[in-house]
Protein backbone atom coordinates (compact mmCIF):
# COMPACT_ATOMS: atom_id res chain seq x y z
CA UNK A 1 0.00 0.00 0.00
CA UNK A 2 1.41 3.33 -1.00
CA UNK A 3 1.90 5.94 1.65
CA UNK A 4 1.76 9.64 1.16
CA UNK A 5 4.80 11.64 2.11
CA UNK A 6 2.95 13.33 4.97
CA UNK A 7 2.06 10.11 6.77
CA UNK A 8 4.48 9.23 9.50
CA UNK A 9 4.94 5.95 11.27
CA UNK A 10 4.31 5.72 15.02
CA UNK A 11 8.05 5.39 15.48
CA UNK A 12 8.67 8.67 13.66
CA UNK A 13 6.07 10.41 15.82
CA UNK A 14 7.81 9.08 18.91
CA UNK A 15 11.16 10.29 17.63
CA UNK A 16 9.66 13.76 17.11
CA UNK A 17 8.26 13.67 20.62
CA UNK A 18 11.69 12.87 21.98
CA UNK A 19 13.10 16.01 20.38
CA UNK A 20 10.59 18.34 22.05
CA UNK A 21 11.71 20.73 24.73
CA UNK A 22 9.38 19.21 27.34
CA UNK A 23 10.66 15.69 26.73
CA UNK A 24 14.27 16.84 26.79
CA UNK A 25 13.67 18.68 30.06
CA UNK A 26 12.55 15.38 31.63
CA UNK A 27 14.90 12.92 29.93
CA UNK A 28 18.13 14.85 29.48
CA UNK A 29 20.09 12.12 27.73
CA UNK A 30 18.08 12.56 24.52
CA UNK A 31 17.66 10.25 21.55
CA UNK A 32 20.36 8.07 20.12
CA UNK A 33 21.69 4.62 20.84
CA UNK A 34 25.36 5.27 21.48
CA UNK A 35 26.86 3.56 24.54
CA UNK A 36 27.14 6.93 26.26
CA UNK A 37 23.49 7.87 25.59
CA UNK A 38 22.27 4.51 26.83
CA UNK A 39 24.42 4.73 29.94
CA UNK A 40 23.17 8.27 30.64
CA UNK A 41 19.56 7.13 30.23
CA UNK A 42 20.10 4.79 33.19
CA UNK A 43 22.34 7.03 35.22
CA UNK A 44 20.12 10.13 34.99
CA UNK A 45 16.90 8.40 36.04
CA UNK A 46 16.19 8.49 39.76
CA UNK A 47 14.73 4.96 39.75
CA UNK A 48 17.12 3.33 37.27
CA UNK A 49 20.30 4.93 38.62
CA UNK A 50 20.19 2.42 41.47
CA UNK A 51 21.14 -0.21 38.91
CA UNK A 52 24.34 -0.72 36.95
CA UNK A 53 24.52 1.11 33.63
CA UNK A 54 25.96 -2.02 32.04
CA UNK A 55 25.14 -5.65 32.64
CA UNK A 56 26.68 -8.81 31.25
CA UNK A 57 24.10 -10.21 28.82
CA UNK A 58 24.49 -13.69 30.28
CA UNK A 59 23.57 -12.28 33.69
CA UNK A 60 20.17 -11.40 32.28
CA UNK A 61 19.54 -15.00 31.21
CA UNK A 62 16.89 -16.85 33.16
CA UNK A 63 19.30 -19.51 34.40
CA UNK A 64 21.56 -17.00 36.14
CA UNK A 65 19.06 -15.80 38.74
CA UNK A 66 15.70 -17.36 37.79
CA UNK A 67 14.58 -13.70 38.12
CA UNK A 68 13.69 -14.46 41.75
CA UNK A 69 14.68 -11.04 43.12
CA UNK A 70 12.78 -9.22 40.38
CA UNK A 71 9.74 -11.44 40.93
CA UNK A 72 9.89 -10.65 44.66
CA UNK A 73 9.86 -6.93 43.82
CA UNK A 74 6.91 -7.64 41.50
CA UNK A 75 4.88 -9.22 44.29
CA UNK A 76 5.78 -6.32 46.60
CA UNK A 77 4.51 -3.81 44.04
CA UNK A 78 1.30 -5.83 43.60
CA UNK A 79 0.87 -5.83 47.38
CA UNK A 80 1.23 -2.03 47.53
CA UNK A 81 -1.12 -1.55 44.57
CA UNK A 82 -3.82 -3.83 46.00
CA UNK A 83 -3.27 -2.92 49.67
CA UNK A 84 -3.97 0.80 49.26
CA UNK A 85 -7.45 0.31 47.68
CA UNK A 86 -8.27 -2.24 50.40
CA UNK A 87 -7.59 0.50 52.97
CA UNK A 88 -10.49 2.54 51.54
CA UNK A 89 -13.02 0.00 52.82
CA UNK A 90 -11.31 -1.40 55.92
CA UNK A 91 -11.72 0.11 59.42
CA UNK A 92 -9.19 -1.20 61.96
CA UNK A 93 -11.73 -1.33 64.79
CA UNK A 94 -13.14 -4.28 66.71
CA UNK A 95 -16.80 -3.88 65.74
CA UNK A 96 -16.07 -3.24 62.06
CA UNK A 97 -12.92 -5.08 60.97
CA UNK A 98 -14.53 -8.48 60.42
CA UNK A 99 -17.64 -7.00 58.78
CA UNK A 100 -15.47 -4.89 56.46
CA UNK A 101 -13.51 -7.97 55.46
CA UNK A 102 -16.79 -9.74 54.68
CA UNK A 103 -17.95 -6.70 52.70
CA UNK A 104 -14.75 -6.70 50.69
CA UNK A 105 -15.36 -10.37 50.00
CA UNK A 106 -19.07 -10.22 49.06
CA UNK A 107 -20.29 -6.63 48.57
CA UNK A 108 -17.58 -4.32 47.23
CA UNK A 109 -17.11 -4.43 43.44
CA UNK A 110 -13.84 -6.18 42.65
CA UNK A 111 -13.21 -6.40 46.40
CA UNK A 112 -12.89 -10.17 46.18
CA UNK A 113 -10.35 -9.82 43.37
CA UNK A 114 -8.25 -7.21 45.20
CA UNK A 115 -8.30 -9.08 48.50
CA UNK A 116 -7.40 -12.41 46.94
CA UNK A 117 -4.68 -10.83 44.84
CA UNK A 118 -3.28 -9.25 48.00
CA UNK A 119 -3.47 -12.57 49.84
CA UNK A 120 -1.90 -14.71 47.13
CA UNK A 121 0.82 -12.16 46.40
CA UNK A 122 1.68 -12.16 50.10
CA UNK A 123 2.05 -15.94 50.06
CA UNK A 124 4.04 -15.76 46.82
CA UNK A 125 6.32 -13.06 48.21
CA UNK A 126 7.27 -15.16 51.24
CA UNK A 127 7.96 -18.13 48.96
CA UNK A 128 9.97 -16.01 46.49
CA UNK A 129 12.06 -14.38 49.22
CA UNK A 130 13.10 -17.82 50.47
CA UNK A 131 13.68 -19.10 46.92
CA UNK A 132 15.80 -16.00 46.16
CA UNK A 133 17.87 -16.58 49.30
CA UNK A 134 18.44 -20.25 48.43
CA UNK A 135 19.49 -19.33 44.88
CA UNK A 136 21.92 -16.69 46.17
CA UNK A 137 23.24 -19.08 48.80
CA UNK A 138 23.85 -22.06 46.51
CA UNK A 139 25.46 -19.89 43.82
CA UNK A 140 27.76 -18.42 46.47
CA UNK A 141 26.65 -14.91 45.52
CA UNK A 142 26.71 -13.82 49.17
CA UNK A 143 30.52 -13.91 49.33
CA UNK A 144 32.94 -10.96 49.36
CA UNK A 145 32.24 -8.18 48.46
CA UNK A 146 28.52 -8.91 48.77
CA UNK A 147 28.32 -9.91 52.45
CA UNK A 148 26.57 -6.71 53.51
CA UNK A 149 23.94 -7.08 50.80
CA UNK A 150 23.21 -10.54 52.20
CA UNK A 151 22.70 -8.90 55.61
CA UNK A 152 20.28 -6.36 54.09
CA UNK A 153 18.53 -9.34 52.49
CA UNK A 154 18.11 -11.00 55.88
CA UNK A 155 16.57 -7.78 57.22
CA UNK A 156 14.20 -7.78 54.23
CA UNK A 157 13.27 -11.41 55.01
CA UNK A 158 12.36 -10.38 58.56
CA UNK A 159 10.33 -7.40 57.31
CA UNK A 160 8.50 -9.70 54.88
CA UNK A 161 7.63 -12.13 57.67
CA UNK A 162 6.53 -9.28 59.96
CA UNK A 163 4.33 -7.90 57.15
CA UNK A 164 2.74 -11.33 56.79
CA UNK A 165 2.28 -11.63 60.54
CA UNK A 166 0.74 -8.17 61.05
CA UNK A 167 -1.51 -8.58 58.00
CA UNK A 168 -2.77 -11.89 59.35
CA UNK A 169 -4.58 -10.21 62.27
CA UNK A 170 -6.50 -7.67 60.20
CA UNK A 171 -9.46 -9.88 59.08
CA UNK A 172 -10.21 -10.20 62.83
CA UNK A 173 -11.60 -13.73 62.60
CA UNK A 174 -10.94 -16.69 64.89
CA UNK A 175 -7.94 -17.83 62.84
CA UNK A 176 -6.38 -14.36 63.04
CA UNK A 177 -7.14 -13.93 66.75
CA UNK A 178 -5.57 -17.20 67.87
CA UNK A 179 -2.62 -16.95 65.49
CA UNK A 180 -1.72 -13.55 66.94
CA UNK A 181 -2.36 -14.82 70.49
CA UNK A 182 0.10 -17.66 69.91
CA UNK A 183 2.59 -15.47 68.00
CA UNK A 184 2.66 -12.69 70.58
CA UNK A 185 3.10 -15.27 73.35
CA UNK A 186 6.17 -16.53 71.48
CA UNK A 187 7.50 -12.95 71.72
CA UNK A 188 7.09 -13.05 75.50
CA UNK A 189 9.54 -15.97 75.61
CA UNK A 190 12.37 -13.46 75.02
CA UNK A 191 14.53 -13.43 78.18
CA UNK A 192 13.95 -10.56 80.65
CA UNK A 193 12.13 -8.16 78.30
CA UNK A 194 9.74 -10.71 76.73
CA UNK A 195 6.68 -9.59 78.67
CA UNK A 196 7.46 -5.92 77.89
CA UNK A 197 7.71 -6.70 74.16
CA UNK A 198 4.39 -8.56 74.38
CA UNK A 199 2.76 -5.60 76.13
CA UNK A 200 4.15 -2.99 73.73
CA UNK A 201 3.35 -5.04 70.63
CA UNK A 202 -0.29 -5.57 71.64
CA UNK A 203 -0.69 -2.23 73.43
CA UNK A 204 -2.23 -4.21 76.29
CA UNK A 205 -2.33 -7.63 77.90
CA UNK A 206 -4.57 -9.34 75.35
CA UNK A 207 -5.28 -9.24 71.62
CA UNK A 208 -7.78 -6.42 71.61
CA UNK A 209 -8.67 -3.08 70.01
CA UNK A 210 -5.21 -1.62 70.70
CA UNK A 211 -3.49 -4.65 69.18
CA UNK A 212 -5.63 -4.42 66.04
CA UNK A 213 -4.80 -0.72 65.59
CA UNK A 214 -1.08 -1.22 66.25
CA UNK A 215 -0.87 -4.11 63.80
CA UNK A 216 -2.73 -2.02 61.21
CA UNK A 217 -0.29 0.89 61.53
CA UNK A 218 2.68 -1.49 61.43
CA UNK A 219 1.24 -3.31 58.41
CA UNK A 220 0.23 -0.27 56.35
CA UNK A 221 2.83 2.36 57.31
CA UNK A 222 5.89 1.42 59.31
CA UNK A 223 6.82 -1.93 57.77
CA UNK A 224 6.20 -1.03 54.09
CA UNK A 225 8.21 2.21 54.43
CA UNK A 226 11.05 0.34 56.15
CA UNK A 227 10.90 -2.29 53.41
CA UNK A 228 11.15 0.37 50.68
CA UNK A 229 14.23 1.92 52.28
CA UNK A 230 15.93 -1.45 52.57
CA UNK A 231 14.92 -2.47 49.04
CA UNK A 232 16.54 0.73 47.72
CA UNK A 233 19.71 -0.06 49.67
CA UNK A 234 19.59 -3.66 48.41
CA UNK A 235 19.48 -2.57 44.75
CA UNK A 236 22.07 0.16 45.22
CA UNK A 237 24.46 -2.36 46.77
CA UNK A 238 24.14 -4.70 43.76
CA UNK A 239 25.67 -1.93 41.66
CA UNK A 240 28.22 -0.87 44.27
CA UNK A 241 29.33 -4.46 44.88
CA UNK A 242 30.22 -4.99 41.23
CA UNK A 243 26.92 -5.82 39.55
CA UNK A 244 25.01 -9.07 39.45
CA UNK A 245 27.12 -11.98 40.55
CA UNK A 246 28.81 -13.94 37.75
CA UNK A 247 30.06 -17.47 38.13
CA UNK A 248 33.76 -17.78 37.37
CA UNK A 249 33.27 -21.53 36.96
CA UNK A 250 30.69 -21.42 34.18
CA UNK A 251 31.35 -23.46 31.01
CA UNK A 252 33.93 -22.07 28.60
CA UNK A 253 31.41 -21.83 25.79
CA UNK A 254 29.20 -19.50 27.83
CA UNK A 255 32.18 -17.38 28.75
CA UNK A 256 33.23 -17.19 25.11
CA UNK A 257 29.75 -16.03 24.12
CA UNK A 258 29.89 -13.40 26.77
CA UNK A 259 33.27 -12.19 25.58
CA UNK A 260 31.67 -10.00 22.89
CA UNK A 261 30.62 -7.65 25.67
CA UNK A 262 33.72 -5.90 26.87
CA UNK A 263 33.29 -4.45 30.31
CA UNK A 264 36.14 -3.22 32.45
CA UNK A 265 36.34 -4.84 35.87
CA UNK A 266 34.62 -2.73 38.52
CA UNK A 267 37.00 -0.68 40.58
CA UNK A 268 35.71 -2.09 43.85
CA UNK A 269 34.92 -5.74 44.31
CA UNK A 270 34.28 -7.85 41.26
CA UNK A 271 35.73 -11.28 40.82
CA UNK A 272 39.23 -11.41 42.14
CA UNK A 273 39.41 -15.09 41.33
CA UNK A 274 39.07 -14.61 37.57
CA UNK A 275 41.46 -11.67 37.47
CA UNK A 276 44.83 -12.25 35.77
CA UNK A 277 47.77 -12.61 38.11
CA UNK A 278 49.44 -9.37 36.97
CA UNK A 279 46.24 -7.43 37.59
CA UNK A 280 46.22 -8.75 41.14
CA UNK A 281 49.79 -7.64 41.68
CA UNK A 282 48.97 -4.22 40.35
CA UNK A 283 46.39 -3.80 43.14
Amino acid at each position, binding site marked *: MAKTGITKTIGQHFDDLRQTRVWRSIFRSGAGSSTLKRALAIQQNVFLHLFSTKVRTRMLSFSATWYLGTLTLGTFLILVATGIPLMFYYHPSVPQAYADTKDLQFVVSSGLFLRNLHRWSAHAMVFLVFAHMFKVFYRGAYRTPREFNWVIGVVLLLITLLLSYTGYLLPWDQLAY*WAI*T*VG*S*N*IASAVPLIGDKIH*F*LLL*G*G*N*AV*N*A*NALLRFYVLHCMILPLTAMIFVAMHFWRIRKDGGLYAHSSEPAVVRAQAADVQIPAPRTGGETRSMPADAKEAQ
Partner: protein
Amino acid sequence: MADDTRKTDDVTRREFFTKLGLGSLSIAAVGTAAFSYQYLEPNVLYEPSPVVNEGKPDRYPLDSVTLDVNSGIYIIHSQEGYFSLSAVCTHLGCLTAWKPELGIIACPCHGSKFAVSEQGKVKPGDKIEGPAPRPLPWKRIWLNDDGDLLVDRSTDVPPLAPDSFVRV
Protein backbone atom coordinates in the same frame (compact mmCIF):
# COMPACT_ATOMS: atom_id res chain seq x y z
CA MET B 1 51.45 37.02 73.81
CA ALA B 2 48.01 36.06 74.93
CA ASP B 3 48.33 32.55 73.48
CA ASP B 4 51.44 31.78 75.54
CA THR B 5 49.57 32.23 78.78
CA ARG B 6 47.01 29.60 77.73
CA LYS B 7 47.39 26.17 79.36
CA THR B 8 47.43 23.19 76.99
CA ASP B 9 44.34 21.58 78.56
CA ASP B 10 42.32 24.78 78.24
CA VAL B 11 39.18 24.54 76.13
CA THR B 12 38.73 27.05 73.34
CA ARG B 13 35.48 28.90 72.92
CA ARG B 14 34.71 26.86 69.78
CA GLU B 15 35.40 23.54 71.53
CA PHE B 16 33.30 24.59 74.49
CA PHE B 17 30.28 25.42 72.37
CA THR B 18 30.73 22.24 70.29
CA LYS B 19 30.72 20.15 73.44
CA LEU B 20 27.80 22.08 74.87
CA GLY B 21 25.84 21.57 71.64
CA LEU B 22 26.61 17.86 71.36
CA GLY B 23 25.87 17.34 75.05
CA SER B 24 22.50 19.07 74.74
CA LEU B 25 21.64 17.00 71.68
CA SER B 26 22.61 13.79 73.51
CA ILE B 27 20.41 14.66 76.47
CA ALA B 28 17.57 15.55 74.10
CA ALA B 29 18.02 12.23 72.24
CA VAL B 30 17.90 10.22 75.48
CA GLY B 31 14.84 12.18 76.58
CA THR B 32 13.14 11.60 73.23
CA ALA B 33 13.82 7.86 73.48
CA ALA B 34 12.43 7.76 77.03
CA PHE B 35 9.30 9.76 76.14
CA SER B 36 8.77 7.67 72.97
CA TYR B 37 8.89 4.50 75.02
CA GLN B 38 6.43 5.93 77.54
CA TYR B 39 4.15 7.07 74.74
CA LEU B 40 3.99 3.55 73.29
CA GLU B 41 3.05 2.07 76.66
CA PRO B 42 -0.67 2.69 77.37
CA ASN B 43 -1.43 4.07 80.83
CA VAL B 44 -5.11 3.21 80.75
CA LEU B 45 -6.41 -0.05 79.33
CA TYR B 46 -10.00 -0.52 78.25
CA GLU B 47 -9.84 -4.24 78.98
CA PRO B 48 -12.47 -6.28 80.84
CA SER B 49 -12.18 -6.38 84.63
CA PRO B 50 -10.11 -9.32 85.94
CA VAL B 51 -12.89 -10.03 88.49
CA VAL B 52 -15.77 -11.95 86.94
CA ASN B 53 -19.12 -13.00 88.39
CA GLU B 54 -19.79 -16.70 87.79
CA GLY B 55 -23.30 -16.81 89.28
CA LYS B 56 -24.84 -18.92 92.01
CA PRO B 57 -22.91 -22.03 93.14
CA ASP B 58 -25.91 -24.29 92.56
CA ARG B 59 -25.43 -23.78 88.81
CA TYR B 60 -22.50 -26.17 89.08
CA PRO B 61 -23.43 -29.79 90.01
CA LEU B 62 -21.04 -31.88 92.11
CA ASP B 63 -18.06 -33.34 90.15
CA SER B 64 -18.63 -31.00 87.24
CA VAL B 65 -16.16 -28.95 85.19
CA THR B 66 -17.61 -25.83 83.53
CA LEU B 67 -15.72 -23.65 81.07
CA ASP B 68 -16.55 -19.94 80.88
CA VAL B 69 -15.42 -19.25 77.32
CA ASN B 70 -15.60 -15.46 77.61
CA SER B 71 -13.63 -15.26 80.84
CA GLY B 72 -11.14 -18.05 80.11
CA ILE B 73 -11.61 -19.90 83.42
CA TYR B 74 -13.04 -23.21 84.66
CA ILE B 75 -15.36 -23.50 87.66
CA ILE B 76 -14.88 -26.96 89.12
CA HIS B 77 -17.19 -28.36 91.81
CA SER B 78 -15.29 -31.17 93.55
CA GLN B 79 -15.84 -33.03 96.83
CA GLU B 80 -13.56 -30.47 98.54
CA GLY B 81 -15.58 -27.52 97.25
CA TYR B 82 -15.60 -25.04 94.38
CA PHE B 83 -12.35 -23.95 92.83
CA SER B 84 -11.29 -22.13 89.66
CA LEU B 85 -8.57 -22.96 87.14
CA SER B 86 -7.32 -20.73 84.37
CA ALA B 87 -8.41 -22.06 80.96
CA VAL B 88 -5.56 -20.30 79.15
CA CYS B 89 -2.85 -22.76 78.14
CA THR B 90 0.51 -21.91 79.71
CA HIS B 91 2.25 -22.84 76.46
CA LEU B 92 1.19 -20.13 73.99
CA GLY B 93 -2.08 -18.80 75.36
CA CYS B 94 -4.73 -20.83 73.52
CA LEU B 95 -8.08 -21.51 75.17
CA THR B 96 -8.19 -25.09 76.46
CA ALA B 97 -11.27 -27.34 76.48
CA TRP B 98 -12.78 -29.77 78.99
CA LYS B 99 -12.96 -33.33 77.61
CA PRO B 100 -15.58 -35.14 79.73
CA GLU B 101 -15.05 -38.46 77.92
CA LEU B 102 -11.35 -38.45 78.89
CA GLY B 103 -11.72 -36.63 82.20
CA ILE B 104 -8.99 -34.13 81.31
CA ILE B 105 -8.47 -30.57 80.03
CA ALA B 106 -6.85 -30.49 76.57
CA CYS B 107 -5.44 -27.68 74.44
CA PRO B 108 -6.43 -27.75 70.74
CA CYS B 109 -3.35 -25.85 69.56
CA HIS B 110 -0.37 -28.02 70.50
CA GLY B 111 -1.87 -30.94 72.44
CA SER B 112 -1.10 -30.10 76.07
CA LYS B 113 -3.21 -32.07 78.58
CA PHE B 114 -4.01 -31.11 82.17
CA ALA B 115 -5.56 -32.94 85.13
CA VAL B 116 -8.74 -31.74 86.87
CA SER B 117 -8.71 -34.12 89.85
CA GLU B 118 -6.20 -35.29 92.42
CA GLN B 119 -4.54 -38.59 91.57
CA GLY B 120 -1.46 -39.49 93.62
CA LYS B 121 1.04 -36.69 93.12
CA VAL B 122 -0.99 -35.10 90.34
CA LYS B 123 -2.95 -32.03 91.47
CA PRO B 124 -5.79 -30.37 89.54
CA GLY B 125 -4.24 -28.10 86.92
CA ASP B 126 -1.04 -30.14 86.61
CA LYS B 127 0.23 -30.95 83.14
CA ILE B 128 -0.17 -34.60 82.12
CA GLU B 129 1.58 -34.27 78.77
CA GLY B 130 2.42 -31.80 76.01
CA PRO B 131 4.60 -28.72 75.59
CA ALA B 132 3.02 -26.58 78.34
CA PRO B 133 5.81 -25.45 80.71
CA ARG B 134 3.64 -24.85 83.81
CA PRO B 135 0.42 -26.19 85.32
CA LEU B 136 -2.80 -24.25 84.79
CA PRO B 137 -2.83 -21.75 87.67
CA TRP B 138 -5.57 -21.76 90.31
CA LYS B 139 -7.48 -18.50 90.57
CA ARG B 140 -8.82 -16.78 93.69
CA ILE B 141 -12.51 -17.61 94.18
CA TRP B 142 -14.95 -16.34 96.84
CA LEU B 143 -18.62 -15.64 97.50
CA ASN B 144 -19.92 -12.10 97.49
CA ASP B 145 -22.73 -10.78 99.70
CA ASP B 146 -25.36 -11.82 97.15
CA GLY B 147 -24.10 -15.40 97.26
CA ASP B 148 -22.52 -15.27 93.80
CA LEU B 149 -19.20 -16.90 93.00
CA LEU B 150 -16.55 -14.32 92.06
CA VAL B 151 -13.20 -15.16 90.47
CA ASP B 152 -10.20 -12.84 90.29
CA ARG B 153 -8.33 -13.83 87.13
CA SER B 154 -5.34 -11.65 88.01
CA THR B 155 -4.61 -13.46 91.29
CA ASP B 156 -3.10 -16.95 91.41
CA VAL B 157 -3.60 -19.03 94.57
CA PRO B 158 -1.72 -22.16 95.71
CA PRO B 159 -3.29 -25.44 94.53
CA LEU B 160 -5.27 -27.44 97.11
CA ALA B 161 -4.81 -24.75 99.81
CA PRO B 162 -7.89 -24.42 102.06
CA ASP B 163 -8.40 -20.80 100.97
CA SER B 164 -8.34 -21.81 97.31
CA PHE B 165 -11.74 -23.50 97.69
CA VAL B 166 -15.22 -22.14 98.31
CA ARG B 167 -17.39 -24.40 100.43
CA VAL B 168 -21.11 -23.72 100.47
